[in-house]
């Protein structure tokens, strides 16, 4: 009897190691170029209310990732740099997205979708190659990648020495 229980348990454990739980984004979107400018459109739902966002992500194989989030008419809500070693630098924040919020959530969501290695704190799902949903306790982010322009991005984008607050 014990052996009958043990076998499925082991299989489940092995499967669990191989793939993340069903309600997690499986793994970062590795299909994107290492050097590119990626435009995103997002709908953020907080307490049942929805806000639309634009995201502009510059990626560099050597420098890391720089994400600028704006509202409909261009106001910058968040600006964050994630270095290749995972260090997060919040460059700009505001009343809507506070600095700590940008660090804890915007940077984390960025790494969930575009990071180089799988994370275990990415609750959500991937609906298509370009459509992701992240669902955390306080919010839901529905994100679509609407444009990808391959090519190297300016090195200054990934220079944390430029008026950054680590």
């Amino acid at each position: 009897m014990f052996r009958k229980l043990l076998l499925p348990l082991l299989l489940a454990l092995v499967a669990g190691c191989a793939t993340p739980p069903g309600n997690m984004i499986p793994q970062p979107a590795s299909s994107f170029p290492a050097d590119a400018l990626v435009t995103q459109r997002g709908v953020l739902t907080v307490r049942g209310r929805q806000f639309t966002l634009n995201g502009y992500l510059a990626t560099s194989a050597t420098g890391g990732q720089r994400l600028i989030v704006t509202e409909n008419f261009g106001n910058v809500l968040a600006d964050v740099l994630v270095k290749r070693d995972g260090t997060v630098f919040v460059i700009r924040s505001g009343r809507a997205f506070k600095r700590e919020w940008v660090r804890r959530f915007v940077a984390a969501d960025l790494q969930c979708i575009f990071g180089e290695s799988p994370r275990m704190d990415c609750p959500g799902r991937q609906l298509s190659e370009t459509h992701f949903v992240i669902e955390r306790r306080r919010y839901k982010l529905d994100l679509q990648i609407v444009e990808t322009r391959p090519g190297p991005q300016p090195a200054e984008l990934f220079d944390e020495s430029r008026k950054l607050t680590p």
Partner: protein
Amino acid sequence: MRRSFVIGVLLLATARFAPGEESPLQPVADPQPLLQDIQRKMSSLTSVYLEFTQERQLKLFVEPLKSEGVMLIGRPDQIRWETTSPYQSILLGNQKTVAQFERADGEWNKLKLGFPQMLKRVMEQMTLMNQGKLDALTSDFTISVSTNRSLAVLTLVPKDENVRAMLSSLEVKMQPDSSATREVVMNEPGGDLTRIVFRRERRDVKFPPGTFDQTKPLDVAAIKAAVSDVP
């Protein structure tokens, strides 16, 4: 949101590109006559159809971030601002209500707006603009005007310090007779800017039913087809 409000200026806009020599702009001592002229010209319009290209120029990026869309105005108080590329989004408003739709996986989804009252306020102000009432502008902005032979530029500087922290100035570039706006530039303190360039203006068009429907807005392709015959 006040920044969005200045988009209302666009309601005064039309978009006819007229090539001209770029001589130096000269400041106009008293902008009131020009503003009154704008009011007079806009108050007679019943509807406006515009296509636009919006360029977000961030100093850090090599190229501007572009989007395209259409803006429709219908009297007495209807507005539709639609982005068609690289994503699809529709914002609809009148004096009573506002609505926003986002397209995902081939379907339009109506959003539960986070700040409907703020958007409604923007729409109300836009309606006032469409009726040629520019009083709101002068209460919120310090306005100066400069001109040359081919261009009239209204420069609006926010009076509110908090607004200036986000928007240092707004430039409305118009035809010299103030009959049409060519582009609007929103300058930010750090040097970044957003430029909205207009084209394919149609005035006093009859929009098809559903154009401003806040439950199921008519597809933009049908609207474009309906206005395509208007000179």
